[in-house]
């Protein structure tokens, strides 16, 4: 009887363990590090911005360098808003076609640039 009880508990424990294993949600992805957001922003920059601002954001004939104290000092939210609105009369297009998440990634990248 005792042995039977033990065996029952063992089976119950094993079943609970298996059930626990089965219903445990997949581990949450680790929060994305700032560096991965910056890399994602760099990728977006290369796709959408580099043709005017230059591959290294150092500017070109059509758009200014982004390695400036003004970009460094601009609050993140203001920079996201600037990307959303653009400055249409002055030739900076609106990037509202990119999702807000991607505009934030661009801002992380821009903030990683050092003022020259």
């Amino acid at each position, binding site marked *: 009887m005792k042995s039977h009880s033990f065996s029952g508990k063992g089976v119950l424990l094993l079943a609970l363990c298996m059930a626990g294993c089965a219903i445990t949600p997949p581990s949450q992805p680790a929060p994305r590090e700032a560096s*991965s*957001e910056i*890399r*994602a*922003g760099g*990728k*977006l920059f290369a*796709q959408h911005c580099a*043709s*005017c601002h230059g591959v290294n954001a150092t500017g070109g004939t*059509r758009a200014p360098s982004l390695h400036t104290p003004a970009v460094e000092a601009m609050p993140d939210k203001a920079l996201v808003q600037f990307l*959303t*609105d*653009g*400055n*249409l*009369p002055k*030739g*900076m*297009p*609106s990037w*509202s*076609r*990119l*999702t*807000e*998440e*991607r505009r934030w*990634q661009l801002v992380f990248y821009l903030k990683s640039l050092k003022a020259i």
Partner: protein
Amino acid sequence: MFVRSSILFMLLGAAALASAQETPYFITYTHHMEEPGSLEVALNPVAGVPKGGARHFTASSLEFEYGVNCWWTSELYLDAQKTGRDSALFTGYRFENRFRMLMKEHAVNPVLYVEYEDITGADRILKEVVGFDTFEDLLEPPDEARHEKKREVEAKLILSTNRKGWNVAGNLIAEKNLNGSPIEFGYAAAVSRPLVLAASPDPCSLCPENFSLGVELYGGLGEWRQVKLAGTSHYMAPAVAWSLPNGVTFKFSPSFGVNSNSNRALVRFGVSYEIPQLFR
């Protein structure tokens, strides 16, 4: 024979040219303008499955879209079609301009669209439905329909918004044939969203962030003094876009007729390529 020639027609187009439009729409316009100085070249073939005895057809428009500046986009379309075993026909051109009316992003962003088109009755692009357009319009053989000239002016009010990754857009269309026919009205509405909102850190082509899904609804609204939904055709079109990092976008959208006046299906393909800063 028809299927082979249709496939060849589409593949030739797909191989030749390619857009970097992130919304998957074919009919509905949003407030997103072409980047200033960039030229987008696109080929959008459509395969038609008509009814009422009309023959299957394949049509295609070659598009050149140029960003004049941040609030003005200009576009030229060259249309052609092939019906059954008939020879292919050039069916005319369209020239359009879109003007963004507000210089900043708002909850709803209006854009004014003005188009002049010089096409024939054999045009089968069916870029929009207006007036009392029905499947019966396609019953006339292209050889006869091509003698009918359509010089039309079209205006659209485009309203569009982006919210939490979603784009919602609506277009109200008014079209006037310069031969004196009454003004015809139509509509298009659409919603879409990228599969993933944030970009991944590494370059990728087949990742979910490059895909966008949506659905369009478009149809006619009758004409001046007879504005109504009845007596015209309406379509629903799920749509998908796949944008590659190199500026090429592929799109696909089968439109299904949702009432008895509509064609059975219009299967649209699109391939486009954006050339940045071409004339600057």
